[in-house]
């Protein structure tokens, strides 16, 4: 059961559904209209909202007139066993990345972009404490 919810703002909900389900192992839970969808992957529920409207939901314009938009740097992570292999595979499938594989302290990662330019972290832990494991 999905217990963690993340909202991404996307320009094209259908394109985003295709991207997340085809490349990253999500499944569609609901897509009641063109401006919203709910996807799931393990414990992560990803809700996709199209910007626009007032008081209509997660993509709503703010009261002072600001419009949500895709992009930024905050993201959810998808853990993989081999980030280099995943990077090559997704790149061959036409997925855009921000730069190359990045080496870090707890693991190595690559930042993929969905069709609206939102980042997704493809993460390979190199240190046990960085794993998403149920271990101690």
């Amino acid at each position, binding site marked *: 059961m999905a217990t963690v919810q993340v909202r991404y703002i996307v320009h094209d909900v259908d394109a985003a559904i295709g991207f997340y389900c085809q490349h990253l192992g999500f499944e569609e839970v609901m897509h009641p209209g063109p401006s919203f969808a709910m996807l*799931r992957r393990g414990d*992560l529920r990803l809700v996709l909202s199209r910007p626009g409207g007032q008081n209509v939901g997660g993509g709503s314009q703010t009261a002072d007139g600001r419009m949500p938009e895709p992009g930024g740097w905050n993201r959810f992570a998808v853990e993989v066993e081999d980030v280099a292999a995943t990077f090559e595979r997704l790149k061959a499938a036409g997925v855009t990345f921000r*730069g190359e594989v990045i080496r870090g302290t707890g693991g190595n990662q690559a930042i993929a972009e969905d069709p609206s330019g939102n980042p997704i972290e493809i993460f390979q832990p190199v240190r046990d404490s960085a794993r998403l494991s149920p271990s101690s």
Partner: protein
Amino acid sequence: MADPLDVLRLPVVPIQPRPAFAAALLRRIQGRGVAGARDTATVRYFVDDVGAAVDFYRDLLGFEEELRTPSFAMLYRGDLRLLLSVPGGSHTLPDGTVPRPGGWNRISLRVDDLDAALTALRRAGARLRTGIVQNPAVRNVLVEDPSGNPVELFEPLAGYYERST
């Protein structure tokens, strides 16, 4: 005459070895699961000040602090693992682009009483990006952490849907 205890005797069923199951169990025990089979969802936010961010998420939103360095922290709230990273260092892209806080993508935390949660946040000086927005499924609001990252709080209403499987 049949033995009355026969009803208690189970037929012998040979157990077929399931190598895939055994391997998955071993990986899980050893903390080496496969992608997609995890129990924890991970989100990374960029923050300018790790200490201020940890205080905010721990004291106002119920996160637990797992570890902290001057440039990184790991927090937990239920099945959510939130990583807080200071921009720069290994996060700088090859072309020199440095990540920064902000944007509109966000974690969405369920609360039972949005008004009460909002009152507590306001009292603590938290900034709000929106007022309360309501549709048939939820009432929600966007608050900002000290670095300006959005956090969505939502309270389910009658039209709320949650998959139960």
